[in-house]
């Protein structure tokens, strides 16, 4: 034990205690205490507080490998690797000795939804603390068995050894039992400067499996005796089935095992997938529906949503907003309905056997889905078991929960066989819950020094979350059965207000949300309201900078006080310094701190505009991100790169269209997204802050990218696009 470091630890402890808000762990029995690591945290991560037992998070297998449990699921964000990394790090195991079990109602902690960029902050940190506690307990038990003090033991590669050569594997230490102790503070964590895995670009093992065509996605899960199903959706939200001739179907399409008709819910089951498709095609052609006109087609949606009955809520207020007199600047911004648009339409497998229902799903919340299914299907919680299997990405609430509910209904009508249901492209496009349309009306004043004196936002939006959350009325087929459920609006406006308050220092401020029930089905899409809000705020910041005759970067910096925000912007400025801009080109910048509490992200976009045609070619996107402590550097970069490209697609191309009956965006021609010809070069710079807590970053780039592009278009051609998407008719001329 090095005396000097020990003294250092004690003095740091005193210092931290002096700071008044931090708990310090200091254990003389732990080998790491020698290098003076502390736990500077006075509370356990939320998920760990709800599930405090070590065995809830990890177990030691007979061969000495460690199995880690997370209540989160893999969406393509690489959480599987990041969580395995923190566990392997704390336990000093190689990555291949750690396996991960994703969300499963029968096995893992209930961590509700994989959403809100929260998986690192909650689940990975819970695993880190649980693994650190496990290490401590394993060493203490090994010390008893070996008759040596912990300080004389080495833990490496899953083996505890003494200097004299005595060895115990992790499995030997536990004698086949698991660690049932609860994790309690203080916990000694591994010193960060000794990390071998965390912060590194540890590659994801699932990409290797996918590239070989091994089963990763739910779409590729094949179960013995599995049959194939398809559903036939009504012609619109309000359509009613008038006539369906089941006998004619059986005559026309051989191989149909079962047709399920329950009110307006229709499904077909066949042993052969193509037979199910033929049955589905036949019924789409021959079933008769009454389809009333219910949607506000042909009207300006921005105008329409402002006219709807609204529930108004003041979400932020500071100082006084001047009324009447004085020069104010006003602008109104709009984002349309956006689609999740998974490339693989939603898919689920359900098996009803012996009164129990087993579901395999790419839902982002298996526990809330179980709760909703159980209530809806009148089963007990014990009778429903839901297992997460990765699906096709989109980052949000797409058709995953609905297709699982569809499959559950079909499986209960056809017990004993796993029923695989694959939605069609058209069903996914036309029925998924979209990201809500939003209208943002902004007003601000400038003082004599060119600083913002007041800021006012009025925001119209539908909810940004209709995830099932235990409520069956959120499941699409529940609307279609003979005894239909009516969607209960959640009254949750938190998603709408996300990032509605600017991260800038403004003395007088007022933010009102006006919650409406819009014409289309909506739910959570990556970043919720933050995309629309940051697009509006950061577009408006450029407009105000111009009025104040300031450079957009300088204007932002003069309104920021958080040094970390200033750092990401100044780093972005450095990256742009060498850029040359030709005629018809422009560079725009933007900044936000996601949720105003998570990752900091500054984005720049360089575009070339063809003013005659109104076409916008993206040339490059840059991001500078500060997500606190980085767990997987490449995973973080991948999230920001992909987030920028997805947001660019939303911003430049996307808008869900509908007629009086239903959604008309039903394929990739009527709802285009970016293709390779549209994709710019992307560069991500990470500001690593290993001593800070990790901050959720998966959604941090969505809002800033939109505004950076729109600001770049303005600088390229002088056209300010306030209503998304940036279509050629808004840019031309």
């Amino acid at each position, binding site marked *: 034990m090095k005396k000097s470091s020990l003294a250092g630890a004690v003095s740091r402890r005193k210092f931290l205690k002096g700071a008044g808000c931090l708990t310090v762990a200091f254990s003389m029995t732990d080998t790491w205490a020698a290098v003076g690591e502390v736990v500077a945290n006075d509370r356990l991560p939320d998920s760990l507080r709800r599930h405090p037992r070590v065995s809830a998070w990890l177990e030691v297998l007979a061969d000495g490998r460690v199995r880690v449990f997370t209540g989160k699921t893999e969406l393509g964000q690489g959480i599987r690797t990041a969580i395995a990394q923190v566990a392997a790090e704390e336990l000093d195991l190689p990555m291949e000795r750690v396996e991960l079990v994703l969300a499963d109602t029968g096995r893992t902690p209930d961590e509700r939804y994989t959403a809100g960029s929260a998986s690192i902050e909650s689940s990975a940190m819970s695993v880190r603390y649980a693994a650190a506690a496990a290490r401590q307990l394993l060493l203490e038990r090994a010390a008893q068995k070996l008759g040596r003090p912990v300080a004389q033991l080495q833990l490496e590669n899953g083996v505890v050894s003494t200097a004299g050569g005595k060895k115990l594997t992790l499995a030997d230490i536990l004698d086949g039992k698991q660690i049932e102790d609860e994790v309690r503070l203080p916990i000694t964590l591994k010193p960060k400067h000794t990390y071998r895995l965390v912060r590194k670009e540890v590659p994801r093992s699932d990409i290797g499996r996918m590239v070989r065509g091994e089963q990763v996605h739910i779409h590729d899960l094949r179960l013995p005796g599995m049959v194939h199903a398809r559903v036939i959706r009504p012609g619109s939200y309000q359509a009613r089935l008038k006539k369906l001739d089941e006998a004619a179907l059986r005559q026309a399409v051989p191989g149909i095992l079962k047709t399920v008709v329950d009110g307006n819910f229709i499904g077909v089951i066949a042993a052969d997938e193509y037979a199910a498709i033929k049955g589905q095609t036949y019924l789409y052609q021959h079933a008769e529906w009454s389809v009333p006109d219910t949607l506000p087609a042909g009207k300006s949606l921005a105008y329409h949503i402002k006219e709807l009955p609204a529930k108004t809520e003041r979400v932020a207020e500071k100082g006084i907003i001047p009324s009447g007199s004085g020069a104010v600047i006003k602008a109104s911004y709009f984002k349309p309905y956006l689609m999740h648009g998974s490339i693989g339409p939603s898919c689920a497998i359900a098996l009803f056997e012996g009164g129990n229902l087993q579901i395999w799903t790419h839902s982002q919340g298996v526990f809330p889905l179980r709760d909703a299914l159980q209530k809806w299907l009148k089963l007990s919680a014990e009778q429903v078991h839901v297992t997460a299997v990765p699906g096709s990405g989109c980052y949000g609430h797409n058709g995953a929960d609905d297709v699982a509910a569809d499959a559950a209904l079909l499986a209960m009508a056809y017990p004993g066989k796993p029923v695989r249901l694959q939605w069609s492209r058209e069903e996914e496009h036309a029925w998924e819950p979209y990201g809500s349309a939003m209208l943002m009306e902004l007003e601000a004043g400038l003082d004599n020094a060119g600083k913002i004196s007041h800021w006012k936002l009025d925001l119209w939006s539908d909810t940004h979350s209709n995830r099932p959350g235990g409520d069956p009325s959120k499941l699409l087929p529940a609307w279609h059965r003979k005894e239909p459920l009516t969607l209960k609006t959640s009254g949750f406006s938190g998603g709408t207000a996300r990032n509605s308050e600017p991260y800038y220092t403004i003395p007088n401020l007022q933010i009102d949300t006006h919650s409406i029930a819009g014409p289309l089905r909506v739910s959570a899409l990556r970043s919720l309201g933050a995309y629309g809000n940051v697009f509006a705020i950061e577009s408006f910041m450029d407009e105000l900078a111009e009025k104040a005759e300031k450079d957009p970067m300088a204007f932002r910096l003069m309104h920021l006080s958080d040094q970390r925000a200033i750092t990401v912007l100044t780093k972005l400025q450095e990256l742009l310094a060498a850029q040359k801009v030709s005629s018809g080109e422009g560079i725009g910048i933007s900044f936000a701190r996601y949720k105003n509490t998570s990752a900091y992200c500054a984005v720049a976009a360089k575009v070339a505009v063809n003013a005659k045609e109104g076409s916008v070619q993206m040339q490059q996107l840059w991001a500078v991100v500060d997500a606190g402590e980085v767990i997987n550097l490449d995973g973080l970069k991948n999230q920001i790169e992909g*987030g920028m490209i997805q947001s660019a697609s939303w911003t430049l191309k996307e808008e869900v269209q509908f007629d009086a009956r239903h959604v008309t965006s039903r394929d990739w021609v009527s709802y285009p997204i970016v293709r*390779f010809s549209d994709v710019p070069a992307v560069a991500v710079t990470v500001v690593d802050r290993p001593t800070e807590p990790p901050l959720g970053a998966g959604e941090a780039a969505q809002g800033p990218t939109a505004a950076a592009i729109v600001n770049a278009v303005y600088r390229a051609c002088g056209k300010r696009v306030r209503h998304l998407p940036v279509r050629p008719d808004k840019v031309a001329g």
Partner: protein
Amino acid sequence: MEKTLTLQVNGKKHTVTVDPATPLLYVLRNQLQLNGPKYGCALHQCGSCMVLLNGKANPSCQIPVDAVTTLSITTLEGLIRPDGSLHPVQQAFVDQQAAQCGYCLNGMVISAVSLLQETKKPDDTAIREGMQRVLCRCGSQARVMRAIKQAAQHS
């Protein structure tokens, strides 16, 4: 109505008894239990279901299985070399971590293999053109381009 057909898939002969109108995609996935080609749209709009037909990338979601009995069909699985090592394009996708959810990976890899067979050292424009048919929702395209450049250097 069903017919017994012989297909050449990944260097082997396979005999299947199916409705001859069945699109190739479903036969590969269900009768042959291959995971590579994925269902995406069945409209030739997204590229998820790409396979190599006589070495060229083609969607498999519409073409009837009895139209391909004389062609050599290669799926993602068939790119793996006999010793179990990866094709340079597959390896480049792993090295560049060119995926998020990975649902589009099949279309990306198959299209890239086809592109590099026609153009040994494609520039950015040629890569974009060669990959234009394949959609990705997670925004992995920038990484896919890096992977294709890596593969082009090593092939």
